C-alpha cells in the first residue's frame, strides 16, 4: 500500500466515522429541545422522560463526536500537510468559526447534561437552544471547507513555488458550491438522525410497547422526517444541476456517463465497466439525464471519455454509491409520504404494523445515504484534493509509516464503534425493562 492510499483510507475511515456523530450532534439537540419544550408546555411526563433519555444518549454521542473531530483536526496536519499549507491560509476562516460554534456546543452540553437540578425547568430548556443552534452552524462551516475543495475560490496558487497570493478569505468561504452543499448536508443530518431514532421507537411499538412515551417519540421524529425528506429531494436536484454546470466530470462519474451525448439517458442502477466504457444491467430513461442536469432533453452531457484517463474518477464506485444515496432517499420519502397519509386519515401517530416495520427497516438508510453521498463527493473530485489546483498525491505527508497509523486508528475506531453500539443497546434495554419509563428520570 502506498502512503497516499494509506492516508486516503485513514481519512476516509475517520470522516465516515465522524460524520455519523456530527450528524447526530446537529439533529439530536433539536429532538431534545422539542421534547423538553413539549414537557414544559403540556406537563406530560412522557416528554420529560424522552428529553432525559435523549440527553443521556447525547452525552456519549457528543463525546465521541468531539474526539473523532479532534482526530480530523490532527489528521489534516499529520496526513495532508501539503494541502494544509495552501488551504489553512485560504479556507481556514470557517474552521476558526466552527471552533467557536463547537465551543458553544461544548459549553452548553455541559450545562444541559449536568444542569437538570441546578437550573429552573425553563432555564434548562433555554440552555438546550444554543446547542441546537450551534450544531448546524458548526456543521455548515465545515461543509463550506469541503465546498471550497470542490469549487476553489479566493486565492491564486503557483504550484512551482508553492506561493499562495491574492487571498480573499470571504470569497473562499462563499465559494460557488457552499450553498448547495451546506443545505444538502444539514437536511441530511436531520433526516438521518430522525429516521434512525424513529426506528428505535417503531421497534419498541412492534414489541408491544405502544405507550405514550413511544408514540410521542415517534411523533416528533416522523414530523421531522416528513419535513426533511421532500426538502432533501429538492436540494438533491439543486446539487445535481450545480454539478452539471460546474463539475462535469463528477456529474458524468456519478451518472455513469462515458460518451459525450445529447439526449443522455438517466441510468438507474447498473454497474459501470471502465474497460468497455459501458454501464451494465441498468435501466435507462432516454433524455432524462439531459433534462435533470440542464432542463432540456436534448442538452449535451459531457462524458468521461473526453477526460484524460489520469484525471478520471472511479465511476465504478461513484455511480453505485450515487444510486445507493438516491435509492435510500427515495425509500425515506416513501416512508414519509405513507406516514403523513396515515396520520392525516387516522388522526393519530402511525401505529400500523406494516408502517412501523417500514420505519424500522428505514432506520439505517439515512446514514447510509450520507456515507454514500460523501463517497460521491470525495471520490468524484479525485485525483484532485483541491479541484483542478492540487493533486491528492502531492498533498500527502512525507512522514514514514502511515500503514502503522492506519492499522492503529482502524482498531481504535472499531473499538469506539463497538462501545457506542453496546452502550446504546444497554440504554434501549433499560427502557424495555421499565414500566412507563418513569424511573428514567433518576438515571
Amino acid at each position, binding site marked *: 500500500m502506498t502512503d497516499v492510499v494509506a492516508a486516503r483510507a485513514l481519512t476516509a475511515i475517520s470522516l465516515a466515522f465522524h460524520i455519523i456523530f456530527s450528524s447526530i450532534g446537529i439533529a439530536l439537540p433539536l429532538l431534545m429541545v422539542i421534547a423538553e419544550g413539549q414537557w414544559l408546555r403540556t406537563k406530560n411526563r412522557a416528554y420529560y422522560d424522552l428529553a432525559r433519555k435523549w440527553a443521556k444518549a447525547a452525552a456519549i454521542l457528543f*463525546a465521541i463526536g468531539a*474526539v473523532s473531530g479532534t482526530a480530523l483536526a490532527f489528521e489534516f496536519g*499529520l496526513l495532508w500537510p501539503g494541502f494544509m499549507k495552501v488551504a489553512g491560509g485560504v479556507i481556514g476562516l470557517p474552521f476558526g468559526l466552527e*471552533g467557536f460554534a463547537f465551543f458553544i456546543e461544548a459549553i452548553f452540553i455541559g450545562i444541559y447534561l449536568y444542569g437538570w437540578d441546578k437550573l429552573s425547568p425553563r432555564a434548562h430548556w433555554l440552555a438546550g437552544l444554543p446547542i441546537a443552534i450551534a450544531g448546524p452552524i458548526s456543521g455548515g462551516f465545515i461543509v463550506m471547507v469541503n465546498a471550497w475543495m470542490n469549487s476553489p475560490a479566493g486565492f491564486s496558487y503557483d504550484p512551482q513555488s508553492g506561493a499562495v497570493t491574492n487571498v480573499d478569505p470571504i470569497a473562499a468561504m462563499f465559494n460557488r458550491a457552499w450553498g448547495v452543499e451546506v443545505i444538502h448536508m444539514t437536511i441530511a443530518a436531520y433526516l438521518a438522525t430522525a429516521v434512525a431514532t424513529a426506528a428505535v421507537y417503531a421497534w419498541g411499538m412492534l414489541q408491544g410497547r405502544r405507550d405514550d412515551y413511544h408514540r410521542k417519540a415517534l411523533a416528533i421524529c416522523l414530523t421531522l422526517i416528513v419535513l426533511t425528506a421532500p426538502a432533501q429531494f429538492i436540494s438533491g436536484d439543486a446539487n445535481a444541476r450545480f454539478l452539471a454546470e460546474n463539475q462535469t466530470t463528477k456529474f458524468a462519474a456519478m451518472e455513469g456517463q462515458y460518451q459525450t451525448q445529447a439526449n443522455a439517458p438517466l441510468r438507474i442502477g447498473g454497474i459501470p465497466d471502465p474497460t468497455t466504457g459501458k454501464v451494465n444491467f441498468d435501466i435507462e430513461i432516454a433524455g432524462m439525464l439531459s433534462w435533470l442536469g440542464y432542463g432540456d432533453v436534448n442538452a449535451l452531457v459531457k462524458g468521461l471519455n473526453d477526460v484524460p484517463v489520469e484525471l478520471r474518477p472511479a465511476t465504478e464506485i461513484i455511480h453505485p454509491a450515487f444510486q445507493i444515496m438516491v435509492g435510500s432517499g427515495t425509500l425515506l420519502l416513501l416512508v414519509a409520504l405513507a406516514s403523513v397519509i396515515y396520520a392525516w386519515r387516522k388522526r393519530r401517530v402511525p401505529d400500523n404494523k406494516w408502517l412501523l416495520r417500514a420505519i424500522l427497516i428505514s432506520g439505517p438508510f439515512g446514514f447510509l445515504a450520507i456515507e454514500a453521498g460523501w463517497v460521491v463527493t470525495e471520490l468524484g473530485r479525485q485525483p484532485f484534493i483541491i479541484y483542478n489546483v492540487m493533486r491528492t498525491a502531492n498533498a500527502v505527508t512525507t512522514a514514514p509509516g502511515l500503514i502503522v497509523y492506519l492499522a492503529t486508528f482502524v482498531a481504535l475506531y472499531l473499538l469506539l464503534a463497538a462501545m457506542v453500539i453496546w452502550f446504546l443497546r444497554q440504554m434501549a434495554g433499560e427502557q424495555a425493562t421499565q414500566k412507563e419509563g418513569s424511573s428514567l428520570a433518576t438515571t
Partner: protein
Amino acid sequence: MPPLNYLAAGVIVISLIIYAVLGGADFGGGVWDALARGPRASAQRRTVAEAMGPVWEANHVWLIIVIVLLFVCFAPAFAALFTALNVPLSIALVGIMLRGSAFVFRAHGRQATGEVSIWGIVFSAASIITPVLLGSCFGAIVSGNIHVDPKTGAVNDYLAWLAPYPLLLGLLALAICAFLAAIYLTLETKGDLQEDFRKRAIGAWLVSVVLATLALPFSASAAPRIWAGLTSGFGLALVPAAVIIGAVAVIAVWQRRYQVARIAGIAQVALIIGGWALAQSPYLLYPDITIDNSASANAIILAMLIALAVGAIVLLPSMWLLYSLFKGHNPTASR
C-alpha cells in the same frame, strides 16, 4: 499596534495557556484517578469524575482553537510541525481520543465511577501519556534539531522528541498538570478528602521542582535559544519570578488558602508558557520557521482576529455561566 502575525501568535500563546490551565488540569485529574489510594480511593475518583464531567469538553475545545489558529494564521508552520512531530502527535491523539471516550463510557456506563474498571484504567493511562507527549513536542521544537526542507516539506529527524530533554519537559508538563488538578480539587472537597488533595498538590509540586531543576541547566545545550532568552534581558527576571510564584502557590496550599493557591498555580503556568514563548520568539520551529517567514496572508489573519473578537462576545459570557454553575460554590464539598 504590533503586526498582525505577531498579534496572532500572541493569541495562540494565550489560548495555549488557557488550554494548559483548564485542559491540563483534566489530564491531572486522570493522574489522581490512577494514584487514588487509601480508604477514600473511591471518593477521590468520584471527585475527579464529578469535577471534570460538565467542563471537560469545553476545556478540550481550547486545544482545537490552538490547532485551528495555527493552521489558519501560520499554515506552513502547521504543516512543518505536524510533519516533524508526526509520531508524538499521533500517539497523543490516540491518547486524547481514548481519554475522552473512556471518560464518558465510565461516567455513563453501569458501573459506579468510583470503582476500578477497564475504562477507568484506560482513562488514567491516556491522561498520563498524553501530556508527556505534548510536553516532549515542546522540547523537540526548542531543541533546534528539526530541520524542514522548505521545498518538499521533508523533515530530517522524526524522533527529535525522543531525547532526554524533551522527555524531561514532558514529565514536567505532567507534574504541573497534576499539581494544578490537585489544587482545583481541594476547592471541590471538604474534610479528609480535601486533605488528600492538599497532600497530593504538595507532592506534585515537589516532583515538578525536581524536574524543573534538572531541566533548567540542561537547557544550555539542549535548547540553546531558550537558554539565551532566559539568561539575558527580561529572561533574567523570568526564572526568579516563576520560582517565587511557585513558592507562593505551594505555601498557600500548605496554609490551606486554596483560592490563593489556585490563582498562583494558574499564574505559574502562564508565566512558564508565556516566558517560553517570549524567549523563543520569533521562532515557531527553531531555527528554520519564524512568525515572519511562515505567516499566512494578512487578509485571513485579520479576518480570523476579527472573528475571534466578535466570537468572544458570545463565548465569554457562556464560559462564565458554565464555570459559575459548576465551579462556583464547592459543588461536591457538601458530601
